[in-house]
């Protein structure tokens, strides 16, 4: 078989270091095995993501690594891929339909640990807020986990949940207004580091003492935590490992393995000022 292996990967967005580093890891891995890689960027538009997948199928990909921008909406693309006997591995977020394998973080854990950490640092009391994001399963799970952790502290009051769309500039304005309307706000949990960086700017601008935790472990976040300040913790995910594992499992499918796991949850890790210096993706 002299035909080069073709791997297609479609991302929900490529304007986030999280996914960019995933792409880098993919390129390295593909180079190592001599495969060709095609990458597309849905820009958070499911319809575009379906079209992107269709186009990749036209190009005859063998493996589809799918980072869905919406789990339900992408189903028809999964179905189409399977009709063409393409191996489909969902990465970071799962997709509906006959996906072969899903590789993603333990997102509920991530939310739980971040908010538990925050509650501890707040001494188990005070007003906190959640900075929500784009409603996909992993994000929803983080919020759920966070609420569970907060719920264990009767003196912590969740005063508001607002959406910063995981975008730094949107989050900035939203958090500024939060701070105006809740002058006693003591802590904020952001569902990812994109939103957290905006929240950090707002907190610093207000000069208030508000503690910020988040999920991802993005370089900027880690740097801010190292410096010390409002940003005290991010629960790190491992995007490079997600795609490495995902590709490995896809290859396993390709080579005919029959007992490949349907879901591979990847551990998350608390990163705070104690270990931030040594952490990177």
């Amino acid at each position: 078989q002299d035909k080069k292996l073709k791997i297609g990967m479609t991302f929900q967005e490529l304007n986030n270091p999280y996914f960019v580093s995933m792409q880098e890891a993919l390129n390295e891995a593909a180079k190592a095995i001599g495969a060709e890689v095609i990458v597309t960027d849905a820009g958070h538009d499911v319809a575009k993501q379906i079209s992107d997948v269709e186009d990749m199928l036209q190009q005859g990909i063998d493996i589809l690594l799918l980072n869905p921008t919406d789990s339900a909406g992408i189903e028809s693309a999964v179905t189409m891929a399977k009709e063409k006997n393409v191996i489909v591995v969902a990465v970071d977020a799962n997709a509906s339909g006959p996906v072969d394998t899903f590789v993603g973080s333990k997102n509920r854990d991530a939310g739980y640990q971040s908010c538990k950490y925050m509650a501890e640092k707040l001494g188990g009391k005070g007003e906190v807020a959640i900075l929500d994001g784009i409603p996909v399963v992993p994000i929803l799970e983080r919020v759920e986990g966070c609420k569970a952790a907060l719920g264990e502290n009767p003196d912590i009051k969740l005063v508001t949940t607002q959406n910063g769309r995981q975008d730094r500039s949107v989050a900035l304005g939203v958090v500024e207004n939060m701070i105006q309307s809740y002058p006693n706000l003591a802590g904020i949990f952001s569902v990812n580091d994109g939103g957290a960086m905006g929240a950090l700017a707002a907190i610093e601008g207000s000069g208030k003492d508000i503690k910020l935790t988040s999920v991802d472990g993005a370089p900027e976040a880690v740097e801010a935590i190292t410096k010390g300040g409002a940003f005290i913790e991010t629960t790190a995910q491992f995007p490079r490992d997600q795609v490495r594992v995902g590709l490995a499992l896809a290859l396993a499918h390709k080579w005919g393995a029959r007992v490949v796991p349907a879901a591979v949850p990847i551990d998350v890790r608390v990163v705070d000022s104690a270990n931030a210096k040594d952490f990177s993706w």
Partner: protein
Amino acid sequence: MSPESTVASPSNPPRSVGSVFRKIFASPLALPLIGLIVVSVLMGLASDNFFSVSNLLNVLRQVSVVAILAVGMTFVILTGGIDLSVGAVMALAGTIAAGLMVKMGMPAGVGLLAGLLVGLGLGFFNGVLVAWGRMPAIIVTLATMGIARGLGLIYSGGYPISGLPSWISWFGVGRVGIIPVPVIAMALIYLIAWVLLHRTPFGRHVYAIGGNEVAAKLSGVKTERVKLAVYVISGLTAALAALILTGRLMSGQPNAGVGFELDAIAAVVLGGTAIAGGRGLIFGTLIGAVLLGILNNGLNLMGINPYLQDVIKGFIILLAIYIGREWR
């Protein structure tokens, strides 16, 4: 026929191949068409897969949603208006339709009907405010865009609504023979639009209003009614697009179609319709939409870096408009 061509064939000979060719060339469709052909050939040269039947049908299917939105947009722009709400209206129509079926357990027919009514209703809302309220279309439809997005998110609670009866997917991925259903729907909608625009008094009035609204009104055109109608049509095509999109996504997505209004406008303008109204052809819009679709598809097929795709697309659009600017 332009005066030039009259002069060129003074004796009016029986239609020869040459004269048909000349007529096509003199038509405002010529330039968008040339643009389409040039871009297609480039894409074909750059990618082996491009000219396969399966890929061409693939492109047409991908294009269908924006192309259908662009039909309503053409009507609106021909009157000198604009409709920025089409993407949001589409999303709301799809969300409500899906919600009624899934969350309320209503029969699918009711859901689909409700989706259409949402489109008509918001189109009516836009139309009344623009026509009788005399408010600028750009801001009215911008506000409606916000309202529709908000309503969709409230109704769905922000979550996509999935779990639709599986036959709904027929609208998005079904085929009749080898032709995808969305492509057939698109073709039908364009045909109807053409008949409306070129074979009925209503169509004349649409063009007349864009050409000179005051004069049209003085001539007895019921300009308010016609303007209302174009926004209603735009709402309707948004709802029809929603049907296809829902079939493709198999879910109601309150956040679907962000920015589609700009794609639809781009299709209309690429197709040669004057943004100030009064001039333009509906099939130009189809060509414009397909051109945009081919750009997306072709750049993907060539495996171009997604970041670079935006840049190339921008330049090709500029080029296409530049070439076509003369007869505008």
